[in-house]
């Protein structure tokens, strides 16, 4: 059996979607779903427009890599038809419109879980992968904090 490619990466470099897709596409793959997150420069907060100058990302790299691997394992458990998986987080100071995170899954067909798997992947990344972001705007700096508390075994 061909080994399914799994990529997880924490990087300061620009995300290259073309290259990542190429890396997780086996000859048996006919479908891919990507989720990417971008820095929002303008955020509607209850009707008030908030402007972000940039986001500063930081990670506890070795643990984040281990938790990305765990997210990939969880995806494979739930959607065994998924072939390739890429989970990439860019860190550093990132400006509006810049892609910051990517979850991509490939499979033979589009109806065997790629959309659900990518959705699950980004949800889990935001729950258990130790990465943080600080919003810098003209009003000052704010570390953003998630709401999820990991449970034993996660």
């Amino acid at each position: 059996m061909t080994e399914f490619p799994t990529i997880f990466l924490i990087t300061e470099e620009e995300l290259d979607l073309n290259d990542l897709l190429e890396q997780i596409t086996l000859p048996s793959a006919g479908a891919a779903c990507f989720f990417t997150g971008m820095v929002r420069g303008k955020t509607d907060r209850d009707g008030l427009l908030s402007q972000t100058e940039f986001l500063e990302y930081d990670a506890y790299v070795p643990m984040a890599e281990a938790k990305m691997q765990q997210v990939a394992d969880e995806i494979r458990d739930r959607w065994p038809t998924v072939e390739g998986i890429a989970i990439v987080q860019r860190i550093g100071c990132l400006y509006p419109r810049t892609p910051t995170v990517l979850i991509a899954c490939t499979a033979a067909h589009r109806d065997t879980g790629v959309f659900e798997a990518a959705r699950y992947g980004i949800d889990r990344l935001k729950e258990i992968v130790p990465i943080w972001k600080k919003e810098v705007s003209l009003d000052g700096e704010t570390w953003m904090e998630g709401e999820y508390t990991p449970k034993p075994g996660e």
Partner: protein
Amino acid sequence: MRDHVGEKSISMDVPENIQVQDLKTILAERYPKATEALEATLVSINREYAFAEDIIPDGAEVAMFPHVSGG
């Protein structure tokens, strides 16, 4: 947390077989300003999430950090 403690990482001697909750108590005593932050902080031992009653093994890598917000 970092702001309250003023350090990115600290080194300290703790009793053998100490639990996560006891480590938090010791830290709160040493850094009173961090008491509230310590309540909410997540803890990892050797890159796995750890909880109040988990025992910290000798030589373990322990980290404390806020709820994650990547993406």
